C-alpha cells in the first residue's frame, strides 16, 4: 500500500516527464518548420549522438563539468537561498588550479592534488562570501553572488594575463602545464578521463552527506522551514555558511577537473556558463545527488545532438536554450498537475487506504 508521500513523489516524476516531453515537442515542431529535410534533421538530433564512438564520447565528457555544478547547486540552494556564485567559483577554481600547476614544482601527481585542493579552497571562499554576508549583514545573496561572478571573471583574467599568459599564443592562453600534469583519458579515442571517477565519488559523498548524516538532515529542515529549524535548536546560520562552503568547493573542483581533463593549458575566454547549467541539472535531478549524473548526461546528450545538427543543417545549436528554459519553467511550475495531485490525495484519503 502506498503512502501519500509516495503519490506526491510520483506526481513530481510525472511533472518532470511532462516538462521534458513538452519541450521536446516544441523543438521538434521548430525543427520541422525550419528544416528543409526534417526527417534527416530529427535523425541527426536524436540518433546522431549514438552514431559514433567519438560522438558518444562527447556526450559523456560533456556531462563531467555539469555533474560538479549540478551538485554544487544542490548544496547551495539546500537552505532555500539562491547563491549563484558557483559560476564564478568554477571559473576561479580553474584559474587557481592553473596558477598552482605552473608555480609548484614536484611529482605530477602531487602537483595535481595541490592544484585541485587550491581550486576547492578558492571555490569555497567565493561561495562562502555571499553566505557570510547574508548571515552577518542580511545582504541579498542573489545580488552579492551575481556581483562576485563578475569579480571572479575580471580577477581571474587579470591573474592569467599578467602572470601566466603564453606570449606565443594570440589569445589569453596560459603556458602549457608541465608534463604529466593532466588527468589521463580512460578510452583513447575519446576525451573521457579519470575525472569521471572523481565526479562519481563526489556524487556519492554528497549523497551520503545529505541522506546519511545529521548535517544533511538538518540542512533539509532548514530548507523546508527555517523558523521550525531555529526553534528546534538548529544553528541555521552556521548551516547556511557550511553548505555554501561545500557547494563552492565542489564547483571549484569541477573547474580544476575540467581544466586538467580537457585541456593542456588554461584557455577559457570568459565565464563558462556551467554554473547556470547546474541550476537546470539540479532541477531535472529534483535536487537528489544520485540523479545528477543522469541529468548531466541528458543535457550533454542534447548539446551533442544540437552540435551535430548545426553542422549538418542550418539550424543553430543555440536552440537547446529553448529546451532548457521550458524545462526549468515547467518543472518548477507548481500549478501543473496540481489539480490531479489534489484529486489523487483526496481520493486515497477518503478511501481510507492510507494514513
Amino acid at each position, binding site marked *: 500500500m502506498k503512502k501519500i508521500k509516495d503519490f506526491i513523489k510520483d506526481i513530481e516524476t510525472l511533472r518532470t516527464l511532462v516538462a521534458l516531453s513538452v519541450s521536446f515537442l516544441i523543438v521538434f515542431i521548430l525543427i520541422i518548420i*525550419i528544416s528543409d529535410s526534417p526527417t534527416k534533421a530529427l535523425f541527426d538530433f536524436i540518433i546522431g549522438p549514438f552514431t559514433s564512438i567519438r560522438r558518444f564520447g562527447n556526450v559523456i565528457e560533456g556531462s563531467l563539468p555539469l555533474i560538479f555544478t549540478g551538485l554544487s547547486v544542490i548544496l547551495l540552494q539546500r537552505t532555500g537561498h*539562491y547563491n549563484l556564485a558557483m559560476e564564478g567559483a568554477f571559473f576561479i577554481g580553474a584559474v587557481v588550479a592553473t596558477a598552482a600547476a605552473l608555480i609548484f614544482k614536484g611529482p605530477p601527481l602531487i602537483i595535481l592534488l595541490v592544484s585541485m585542493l587550491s581550486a576547492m579552497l578558492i571555490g569555497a571562499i567565493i561561495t562562502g*562570501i555571499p553566505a557570510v*554576508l547574508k548571515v*552577518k*549583514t*542580511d*545582504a*541579498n545573496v*542573489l*545580488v*552579492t553572488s*551575481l*556581483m*562576485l561572478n*563578475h*569579480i571572479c571573471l*575580471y*580577477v581571474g*583574467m*587579470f591573474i592569467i*594575463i*599578467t602572470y601566466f599568459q603564453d606570449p606565443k599564443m594570440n589569445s589569453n592562453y596560459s603556458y602549457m602545464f608541465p608534463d604529466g600534469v593532466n588527468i589521463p583519458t580512460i578510452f583513447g579515442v575519446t576525451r573521457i578521463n579519470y575525472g569521471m571517477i572523481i565526479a562519481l565519488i563526489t556524487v556519492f559523498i554528497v549523497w551520503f552527506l545529505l541522506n546519511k548524516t545529521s548535517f544533511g538532515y538538518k540542512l533539509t529542515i532548514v530548507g523546508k522551514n527555517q523558523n521550525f529549524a531555529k526553534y528546534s535548536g538548529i544553528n541555521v546560520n552556521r548551516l547556511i555558511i557550511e553548505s555554501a562552503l561545500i557547494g563552492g568547493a565542489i564547483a571549484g573542483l569541477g573547474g580544476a577537473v575540467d581544466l586538467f581533463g580537457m585541456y593542456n593549458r588554461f584557455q577559457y575566454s570568459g565565464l563558462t556558463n556551467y554554473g*547556470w547549467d547546474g*541550476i*537546470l541539472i539540479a*532541477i531535472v535531478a529534483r535536487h537528489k545527488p544520485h540523479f545528477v549524473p543522469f541529468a548531466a548526461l541528458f543535457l550533454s546528450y542534447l548539446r551533442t545532438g544540437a552540435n551535430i545538427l548545426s553542422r549538418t543543417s542550418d539550424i*543553430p545549436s*543555440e*536552440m*537547446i*536554450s*529553448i529546451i*532548457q*528554459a*521550458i524545462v*526549468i*519553467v*515547467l518543472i*518548477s*511550475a*507548481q*500549478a*501543473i498537475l*496540481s489539480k490531479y495531485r489534489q484529486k489523487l490525495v483526496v481520493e486515497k484519503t477518503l478511501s481510507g487506504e492510507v494514513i
Partner: protein
Amino acid sequence: MLEFIKIILTPEFLFSVIRVMTPILFAALACMVFIKGGIDPIGIEGIMLLASMAGPVGGYYTNSVIGGILAAILISLLASLLFGYVTLKLKSIEILAGIALNTLASGLTIFIIYYVAGNKGSTQSLTSKVAPIIELKIIKNIPYIGKILSGHNILTYLGIILVFVLYYILYRTPLGLRIRSVGENSAAAESVGINVLKYKYITLIMAGTIAGLGGAYMSMGYVSFFSRGMIAGRGFIGMAAEAMGRGNPYGIFLSSALFGIADSLATQLQMLDFPSQLIQTIPYIITILGISIYSYRHKKVRKVI
C-alpha cells in the same frame, strides 16, 4: 596622478559617464518597478537582451527608428508578460523562471539573428538606424557644462526624465500606491479590495517597457547593431544599482552614475597602462560593500523594533 585627475575633469570623460550609465539606469529603474510590485527582477537581463536584438531587426524591416524602438518595446512586453503568465498562472518559482527567461533570451536572440542577418555574431550586415542625438539649445552654449550635458542620444534624456516620472507615479498617484501595496503585502492589499493580479500585470507592463527602452539603447544608441550577449550583465548590475539606491528613483540615479564613473574610469586607465581588469572590478566591489552596509543597518533597526 595629476594626469589622472586631469582626465577625470575633462568634459569628454563626464560625457562618457552619462553615455555609459544610460543602460544601467534603465535596467535599475525597471528593476525598481518590478520590486515595488513584488516581482523578482532577475529576468531583466534576458528581457533587455531580447529588446536589444529586436531594435535593429525591427528598424531594418520598417526602415525607421520608431519601428525599431517599438519592436524592442513589443518584444520586451511579450517577454515580461510571458514571465508573468508563468509565475502568476503556472506558479513557477520567480527566480527560476527569471533564470529560464535569461537562458531563453541568450539562445533565441542568436537563433533569430542567424536567420535574419545570416550570422550568429551580430547584425552588422543589416543597415539599421540609430536613435537621434539631441542638442540642447541653451545648455549647449554654456562652456564646459554644455559639452557634458548636450549631444546625447534621445533615449538617454528619456531615461533621465523617467527618473522623475517614475518618482511621481510611484509616490504621488493612487496607481503607484496600489502597486507598492501589492508589492509590500499582497494579502493586505487584497483584503482592502485591490485586484492584486491586475496590478501585478500593470507592474510587468511598466517594467517591461522600461527594460525594452534600455535594450533598444544598447543597439540603437550605444552602438548601432546587435551583437550576441551584448547586455553582458548590465541587467544584473541594474539589480545591484536598485539595491544600492535603496529602491528610491533618485538614489538609483546616483548609484547608476557611480557605475558609469567606474566603467569610464576603467576605459581611461586602460590607456594609462593600468591593469584594466582590476579597475573593472571596482563597481562590483563597491556594490557588495554598499548592499552589505545598508542591509546591516536595516537589520539593526528591525532588531530594535
